[in-house]
């Protein structure tokens, strides 16, 4: 897709024929794509399209019914811990432990990720600086506003400076200024990482993504740079509606 990954390096994210069924319902249906270093992939689709399930499978939380995925070359089924080490994941809704302080929570994540002593403090401080959390560092997470909670989740995902980032709705619940900050942050990190973000906000895709995948009913409907999805006289929103509504009617 893009030239950033270099000719011989494998893509940082490789998804091959991923399928997930829940009973008779197929949430994700034979989805394959790769994301290379330097790419920011926008994952778009109506609610229930299979975005979150795909991301959960990639993160090793949901076991695929069929197919597989690799993160930085590590198979999520055969080498789950190695794959998870290379991944920063913001789950849907940015869950955190409410009774912990921001610092306590980030230290917990850093310790599980194997950091100790001065390195641990550095990593936690850097993650808080990137997400502007210093002002609330000693506050219990349950006392924070929705925007701050989301940024704690984001800080947790960025903490170990992973080569792969999977962020499920990273700007949900943020005010316009905070949205701008998070987009800037993603843009800054983009050259060094492979990033997938899911979102409902189409302007966000145009603002930060180098590529967009539109998914509905578990299948990929379009996979192209955002500007290529645009046809003359159509906004991205119109394209999205056309593609996904046609799919739902079918």
């Amino acid at each position, binding site marked *: 897709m893009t030239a950033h990954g270099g000719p011989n390096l494998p893509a940082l994210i490789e998804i091959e024929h991923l399928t997930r069924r829940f009973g008779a319902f197929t949430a994700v249906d034979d989805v394959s794509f790769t994301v290379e270093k330097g790419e920011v992939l926008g994952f778009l689709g109506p609610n229930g399209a299979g975005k979150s399930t795909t991301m959960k499978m990639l993160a090793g939380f949901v076991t695929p019914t069929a197919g597989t995925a690799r993160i930085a070359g590590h198979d999520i089924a055969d080498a789950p811990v190695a794959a998870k080490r290379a991944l920063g994941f913001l*789950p849907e809704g940015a869950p955190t*432990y409410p009774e912990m302080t921001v610092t306590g929570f980030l230290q917990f994540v850093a310790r599980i990720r194997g950091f100790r002593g001065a390195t641990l403090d550095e990593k936690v401080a850097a993650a808080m600086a990137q997400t502007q959390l210093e002002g609330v560092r000693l506050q219990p997470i349950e006392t924070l506003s929705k925007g701050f909670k989301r940024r704690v989740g984001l800080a947790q995902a960025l903490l170990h400076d992973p080569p792969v980032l999977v962020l499920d709705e990273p700007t949900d619940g943020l005010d316009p200024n905070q949205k701008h900050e998070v987009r800037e942050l993603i843009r800054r990190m983009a050259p060094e990482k492979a990033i997938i973000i899911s979102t409902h906000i189409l302007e966000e895709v145009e603002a930060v993504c180098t590529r967009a995948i539109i998914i509905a009913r578990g299948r990929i409907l379009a996979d192209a740079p955002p500007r290529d999805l645009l046809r003359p006289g159509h906004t991205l929103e119109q394209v999205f509606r056309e593609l996904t509504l046609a799919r739902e009617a079918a």
Partner: protein
Amino acid sequence: MGPMLTVARRELAGYFATPVAYVFIVIFLVLSGALTFTLGGFFNRGQADLQPFFNFVPWLFLFLVPALTMRLWAEERRLGTIELLLTLPLTQWQAVWGKFLAAWAFCAVALALTFPLWVTINALGNPDNGVVLAGYLGCLMVAGAYLAVGAALSAATKNQVIAFVLAVAACFLFAAAGSPIVTDFLSTRVPALAELARAVSVTERFNSFARGVVAARDVVFFASFIGFWLFLNAVVLDHRKAD
């Protein structure tokens, strides 16, 4: 090891960050003390031992331990943090054992806080402290057994009340299995089952600890009991984590 202990540490700190720990410890101390001195006849027996105390511990744990384990996984599922925890670089085993060890350490703290009883009998007479130690070890084993059962059942549901009720029922089964009512009933009708009931009885084995007998086979029983239920916990977790 590292991630497991990190999980255990966070979990244990979580108990003390909420009123759970304090309520549990206070209720445990009040009930065990009250039962020991009233129903147990601590003074009237005229013996310097902790038998009256040990008699009640398994029955107290029957209700208190499930109260501790009901939130273990159910809470993580409700908050969605299970998705965070299980996508961090640790194995499912490390998460299961970490949580179990935290709860076990917490029970050990609660038991340790009954030390005034031990001080009392040493002030009043010359107890066999080896027997007392064996009794405490037995209490810890029973706590571990109930914790493992409760943890596995907590992984099976999102609802804490269901987790609690199921755990009490399951623990009661293992507590009552060795009681004369059950074994007498079974031995007259299905003798084969009576043997089995005695074999899986937690109280039966606890009683030998309380008498001061630390038998290898009892320790092995508790170790494999805990191992089995935690294995079940991991299996259930794997199947139901994303539901």
